[in-house]
């Protein structure tokens, strides 16, 4: 790379950095920026700027499901809160629905074994919420198995 190429590259890097900063603050004027850097006729730079703007539009923040967030919190903190337990079960069951029927059956058995383990350890889990969650599981498994 010769000196002028190197200089062009540095100018380009600074322009793109300024553009990205302005884009994220919502105060970018592409024309003013190109003028300031003396690159108004540079189609390549304009294309890079367009790509950056498209990336920003294509990547909005997404929200994790509340059930997942609550379930993982319960798992990490180990709070034996009945509502948390219900949400944990709801999330686990929701995840089961995405699996193949065989994997659902395996998952269901594992889940049941887990529930049995929790209940028999007598850690204050509300047995009614366990029974309710297990009841919710049955239609999911049976309908999948019937269609398989």
């Amino acid at each position, binding site marked *: 790379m010769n000196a002028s190429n190197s200089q062009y590259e540095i100018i380009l890097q600074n322009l793109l950095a300024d553009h990205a900063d302005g884009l*994220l603050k919502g105060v970018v004027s592409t024309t003013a920026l190109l003028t300031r850097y003396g690159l108004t006729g540079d189609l390549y730079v304009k294309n890079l700027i367009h790509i950056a703007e*498209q990336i920003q539009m*294509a990547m909005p*923040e997404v929200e994790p499901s509340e059930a997942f967030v609550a379930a*993982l919190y319960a798992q*990490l*903190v180990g709070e034996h809160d009945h509502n948390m337990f219900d949400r944990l079960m709801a999330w686990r069951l929701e995840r089961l629905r995405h699996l193949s029927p065989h994997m659902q059956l395996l998952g269901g058995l594992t889940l049941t074994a887990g529930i049995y383990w929790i209940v028999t350890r007598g850690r204050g889990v509300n047995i009614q919420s366990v029974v309710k969650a297990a009841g919710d599981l049955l239609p999911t498994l049976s309908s999948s198995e019937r269609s398989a």
Partner: protein
Amino acid sequence: MKNDTRPPDFDYASAEESELVALAAEDKLAFGELYQRYVKRIYNYFYYRMGSHEDAEDLTARVFIRAMAHIENYDDRGVPFSAWLYRIAHNLVANWHRDNDRHKVIPLDEFLANKILTDAPDILTEHKEEQEFLLASIRRLPEERQQLIFLKFVERMSNQEIGEIMNRTEGAIKSLYHRTLSTLHDDLTAKGISFGRVAEEVKRKRRVRKNNA
């Protein structure tokens, strides 16, 4: 890890991050507060890296489980806690790709279309297709470049903050950003995609509609 080391009346929600980190090794609720502050950000990281909510949930869970198991090893020497989490996340993505030997390309989510619902249907379809190509192209980038794009556009971090996470200088991040856009440009051009034209057309139609209103 115990739950009884927190000071009486300790307000986790308003605590400084450094206080929470110091407590977290012995206090699950302190770790829980850190989790609540960062779960969405880590989830977003995985969502845009992996392209599916299921993978994002699995990997997000692994990050926090791993972080909780190793929080005693976290040493705050000017590196933010978030940088530590992102490094764990980065390693998990690398392992995931190595173990699964796959690189999925997902269909575009509904929100992309919703962003420009007010535009004409033909432009909407073309725009959506091009954003699909763009996201697919981003997922073909090397790991560190994908990370850079995420930290800049979703996390909205400065080059200096990105540098702290990626262990590089601000100048190196600037250079990497330029090379990343350049790679995307070459990749999209090779596929016959011209982003500038569609973006200009969308803007033009919006201007016309605004003037007519």
